[in-house]
């Protein structure tokens, strides 16, 4: 890293060189703080908006929630300052803004919780804040404990095994523990002592790290060995192993747990990472074809998959056999009633949509913040993904590159699948909206993802150790 020819600031006294070095080394923590204050301000305004929109009244509860939120993001900021001073300055504020808006929406929906098809208790907001605390706690833990992202590479197979186990667990358990009340055929959670946990949310992260570790090792053989057919480089049959395992895992999800959305996200994640590692388009094609064939077959074989397709094609049908989807239509109607500028937080009727607090939270935002607000939300997601991709490009070691690119793409894919689903762009598959949906696992896992990205971006932006060098003198190198 160090270069013997690099002049030291002390020696050169050249202002130009000095500035150049400063530019590279700026940690931008003050930018992060400014943006964080901005994000907190928006959340505060959103709370006030909800208060006036619901009943022209601000409650002290709101102040408590807001204060709790400020304390949490404040801690996160201080931890970043201490343990990841060169982390991307936008990741934390963007995630905090989404999380804050999610808390506000939970509060707003819980205020009319009795009207919901799946009622919410008033304590939902407290829980949402609690989950935020756990999520930010994990964010902090990642920054403090994982000082160098490359150490994760050591646990490639461990993480892979953990990921697959987490996926398989709900399918193996009886549906009294893993079933989702009200949606037969769906087994995606662990219900223990009143708390529910969705292991797949964490499996996604473990598998992303595992894929990255595996592909870094195998990328050359995957990219170079093989034969060229019709202008496409086909891999060797024996190298198809890992993609078949991933495909099997995603089909397992699809068939035994009824979770098409997450299975699509898994498949997309793996294929994207394969492509990143090998730069070979054939992997994209193979992965895409495998998924489409699998999903199509499943839609013919398993009713709960077929229903999704029918609902997508004919949501307005009068009964569910013909595809009619009350939930989807109510969500669309809600977004339509919001129009361009929305009804204002607390001013709409999001409670008419089934499961508006989780899968359909985007329609609640669409209704109350309008097209303008929803576009802003999508842009926030887009910015997080962009910061992640930027990190992937600037980070130097291939494992970190793969991990950052894969995680960013997974976030984008998840947003695409759920937002596209509720807006009837693609068949609806019930997955959570990162940061916004009510519920713990998704929120905690999303923070974990941001933590890893922050750590990676810190590595990427951290300046090389400044060579302590003065011409004519003995060079002293400190090793930390």
């Amino acid at each position, binding site marked *: 890293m160090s270069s013997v020819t690099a002049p030291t600031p002390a020696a050169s006294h050249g202002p130009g060189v000095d500035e150049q070095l400063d530019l590279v080394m700026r940690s931008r923590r003050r930018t992060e703080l400014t943006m964080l204050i901005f994000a907190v301000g928006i959340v505060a305004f959103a709370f006030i908006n909800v208060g006036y929109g619901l*009943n022209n009244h601000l409650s002290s509860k709101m102040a408590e929630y807001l204060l709790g939120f400020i304390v949490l993001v404040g801690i996160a900021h201080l931890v970043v300052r201490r343990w990841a001073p060169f982390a991307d300055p936008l990741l934390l504020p963007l995630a905090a803004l989404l999380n804050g808006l999610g808390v506000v929406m939970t509060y707003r929906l819980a205020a*009319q919780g009795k*009207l919901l098809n799946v009622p919410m208790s008033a304590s939902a907001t407290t829980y949402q804040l609690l989950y935020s605390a756990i999520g930010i706690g994990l964010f902090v833990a990642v920054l403090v404990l994982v000082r160098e992202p490359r150490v994760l590479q050591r646990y490639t197979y461990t993480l892979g095994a953990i990921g697959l186990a987490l996926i398989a667990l709900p399918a193996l358990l009886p549906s009294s523990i893993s079933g989702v009340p009200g949606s037969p055929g769906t087994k995606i959670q662990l219900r223990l002592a009143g708390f529910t946990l969705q292991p797949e949310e964490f499996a996604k992260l473990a598998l992303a790290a595992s894929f990255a570790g595996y592909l870094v090792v195998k990328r050359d053989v995957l990219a170079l060995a093989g034969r060229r057919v019709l202008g496409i480089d086909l891999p060797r049959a024996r190298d198809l192993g890992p993609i078949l395992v991933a495909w099997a895992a995603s089909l397992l999800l699809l068939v035994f747990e009824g979770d098409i959305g997450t299975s699509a996200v898994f498949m997309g994640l793996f294929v*994207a990472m394969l*492509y*990143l*590692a090998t*730069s070979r388009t054939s992997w994209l094609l193979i992965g895409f074809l495998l998924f489409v064939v699998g999903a199509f077959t499943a839609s013919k074989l398993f009713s709960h998959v077929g229903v999704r397709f029918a609902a997508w094609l004919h949501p*307005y049908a009068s009964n569910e056999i013909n595809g009619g989807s*009350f939930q989807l*239509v109510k969500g*669309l*109607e*809600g*977004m*339509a*009633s*919001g*129009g*361009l500028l929305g*009804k204002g937080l607390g*001013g709409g*009727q999001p409670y*008419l949509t089934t499961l508006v607090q989780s899968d359909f939270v985007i329609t609640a935002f*669409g209704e109350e913040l*309008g*097209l303008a607000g*929803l*576009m802003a939300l*999508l*842009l926030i*997601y*887009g910015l997080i*993904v*962009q910061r992640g*991709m930027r990190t*992937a*490009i600037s980070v130097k070691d*291939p494992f970190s*590159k*793969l991990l950052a*690119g894969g995680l*960013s*793409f997974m976030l*984008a*894919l998840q*947003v*695409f699948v759920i*937002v*596209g689903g509720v*807006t009837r*762009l693609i068949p609806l598959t019930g997955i959570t909206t990162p940061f916004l949906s009510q519920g713990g696992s998704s929120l905690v896992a999303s923070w974990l993802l941001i933590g890893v990205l922050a750590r990676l971006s810190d590595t990427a932006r951290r300046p090389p150790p400044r060579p302590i060098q003065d011409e004519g003198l003995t060079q002293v190198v400190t090793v930390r």
Partner: protein
Amino acid sequence: MNRALKRLSLAVLVMFVVLLININYLQGFDTAKLAALPGNTRALEAQNQYQRGEILTSDGVIIAESKPSNDPIYKYQRYYPQGPLYAAVTGYDSLYSASGIENSEDSVLAGNNSSLAIRNFIDLITGKQHKGANVTTTINSKAQEAAYAGLQQALQGTSRVGAVVALDPATGKILAMVSFPSYDPNLLATHDGTTLNANDKKTLRAAGNPRLNHAINDLFPPGSTFKIVTSSAFFNASTANNPQTTVDSPTQLTLPQTTHVLTNDQGEACGNGSGRTTLIQAFLQSCDTTFGKIGMNLGGNTLNNEAQAFGVNNQSLKIPMPVTASNYTIPPGLALTAFSAIGQFDDQVTPLQEAMFAAAIANGGKLMTPYLVQNVTASDLSTVTTTQQTMLNQAVSPSVATNVGQMMDAAVQNPGGTAFAFNKNNEGGIDIAGKTGTAQNGVHNTGLNDAVFTAFAPFGNPKIAVGVIIQGGGYGATAAAPIAVQVIKAYLATLGIR
């Protein structure tokens, strides 16, 4: 690997752009279609989240308003202070549906009519609470109360129905509109779904179908009041015809191609029994034989044209609620033409149409389009729209109108007139002109006769035209006319005419 990352970033960009385009389409262009989906109750539910406009009578009585409510969900409660009295006018506004003015004028009452767009925008900027516009109707509260009281007296406790409509002949303003039996719209304004369903069923199943506006959406045979149309057609046929023209008035009229004999009501002679009498005598006495004969001479087509000139068969009349078209069918054959000329056969009219007969005559033949909404005022009390009065049709020429009016006056003022009996005291000096009708009803005319009365007053300077129909009321003069007189007196009193 950076090249692949850049390509993947582009793919992500495409994904987000597709999402953005899709939500732009949904929330920017597809809103009207989604809002109009059959199961979409949002618009109706949203109405209770802000203050909906008031509905008022022309003399300032509030007949529908929104009051702040203590309900945890809905901030406002729709309230109808007068209950059943104005139900035919206001209609109701429930969580799931609406009727009457509440339905027809919904966009202004809700405040989202395009005419209010600029005001709404200013309110948005200045942070003023959204509030619907007020609708002032043409209804006169005194006339409405008199009409309701009259119908209540005649029909309370029976399962029969009736309706009164009063018009200002010169403008077409609807001064009173009552349908009986009525219902309390407050029952349907409740925010409680279970109660609403129960009340909905109860009012829909109640005797006399109170939810149907009998004044504009129910049809009755006009009976002898249709002789106004037949007379108008007779005068139209020749300028030589006038009320003093001598016409055939047989005591019995044998109908062609049948053995059926048409007689007058009690088989009495028409005029002096000579078989010939003046038209005015036949009109005031309401001789069926005379008008049956005139009808046969004129023919079904002529009667049809004349009836349509008065607004019969008009499928598109809106006040702004859609009005059921009154019906005249050209009869197949002379015998039935005779019946159709005296308001039988397939002749069917709404009570509003009855009022329009008298209104056209009273206004020199000019039939003004009836309307119920006088103006719309925004929440800042500035006028948004005012209904312009328009002529629906020149029903008859002014001279014909004078002739028919003269005969209608005679029917009430002449001691031999069918409506003289109730007018012995001359009603405090108000000169009322009118025509009674007693329509046979039911299968083979076994039902009770419907009582019909159409009138205008004062004769010299008409200010009000009234149509009354009492199902099963018996003679028009006995059951319907007194109600019309009460309405006329109540309204003229507000104008200072007594």
